[in-house]
């Protein structure tokens, strides 16, 4: 019962945009995990 010219994405360098996007995904994962596994 857990790497040259930087293309711009939304005004940010690519690595910043991807890292920020991953932040959002982690937020979604954390919220999902809370709802999925938190005891009632």
């Amino acid at each position, binding site marked *: 019962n857990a790497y040259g010219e*930087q293309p*711009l994405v*939304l*005004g*940010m*360098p690519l*690595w*910043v945009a991807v*890292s*920020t996007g991953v*932040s*959002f995904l*982690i*937020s*979604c994962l*954390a*919220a999902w*995990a*809370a*709802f999925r*596994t*938190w*005891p*009632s």
Partner: protein
Amino acid sequence: MSNIPLGPAELGFIAVYLLSLIGIGYCGMRARTENSLKDFYLAGSGVGFLVLVLTLYATQYSGNTLFAFTGKTYRIGYAWLMSVHFMMAIIVVYLVFAPGLHRLAKRESFITPADFLEHRFSHRPYTVLASITMVVAIGNYLLAQLTAMGLLLQGMTTFEPQTAFVAGVILLAVIMLVYETLGGFRAVAWTDVIQGGILMVGFAILLFVVLDHFGGLAKSFETLKEAKPEKVAAPDALTIRRWFSYIVVVGIGGALYPQAIQRIYAARSQRVLRNGVATMAFLPLTASLIAVFVGVTAAASPELATLTDADSDRVFGEVCRIVMDESPFHRWLIVVLLAAVLAALMSTADSVLLSVSSMLTKDIYHRQINPAASEARLTLIGKSMSWVVVAIMAAIAIYLNSLENKPTLVKLMDMKFDMLMQLGPGFILGMHWRGMKPSAPFWGLVSGLALVFALYPVGTLTNWGIHAGVFGLAFNLLVVVALSKWPLGQARSKGVLET
């Protein structure tokens, strides 16, 4: 803080806001159900979803987020994006131990964080040492907030600087003490709703005025790529190591803030706590990320080019000063923003103060000095303790500010997390590992703290980009596991864990 002198009407707006906090404190007192420690420090049966989210938000995002985060980004550029990740790491750590801790807290009527350790290990030296570690770690945090309050008032008035600083510290500390003494946790949490709301509005205003005045992120990128390419380039190996280290240090240390643990206790139900934590997972994107965007935009601005790295904590104040001259509308936006800064400082300071007061009263006075004291007497002692602690801290803040060479508080801020994370084995591992022997976390904590303080003067390992706290925690865990697996000696601790 830069000088941003306000007019009578604008100072009047700030005064009304401050007086409303005392009114909320009075309402908190009227809502009191009994004269007990549980009612004073945890609002009796607890708080609902909206209050929990806003009190966690207002407590976790302090004036530091606005001053230090924008300043740090101004210095190192986009690499401070790590602040978004380490604030999120706190929520990930909550997922691991908050449900079990909340369940035990409701069943056993915990009030202070050390109540859990006493219940879990029944090892008095560990309970007392853990409590002292937490008081020392967040005591300097309170000092930093009081200092920032004085500097903010100093910048908002035209009085002689030292006089304005002293008046600012005393005025804001007394207002905070009055509403806290009146309503306890209930007043602190309810004022956090106002302060958290203003802080959220403040971050939105900050993003709007900065992008509106200084131009968008793309423009900043083009400017920085030519003038300061290191601020938009991918971080080097040292910064990458520091990024990982910050995630571990703040993720574990920040989740073990005593005032945050008491909010886990104070949630009315598991459902409220679950919804609160799930919501908090998104809030770094509305606070830390905005501070990073503001810092990067400021770094690209020719209007702020004269600001040296040493003065970078003034970036936020300088941005306010430049923007407010544009129009009366912009001026009032900045006034609301300054109210948000005040909210950020006071909401963090009052929560820390309440937590320190509860630990001194329950863990030290009640547990060690006067176990027979009545609830009413303990509550009176707790309220008195708040006034004594603030009087001492305010005096230290005023003294430090009067010195020619003002000591930096940045080092103390880093020490806070290095110390708090040494409590991780007791709180997090202790929640899940039945085999941990009662004395193991005590010797682990002693070993971890000893290594942390031994590494500070050396600097060799920490210069490699990894915080002293990470090495301390590794040693701490090694001692805990070795003592718990050692075949001889004491019996294992009682199995009162999450079931």
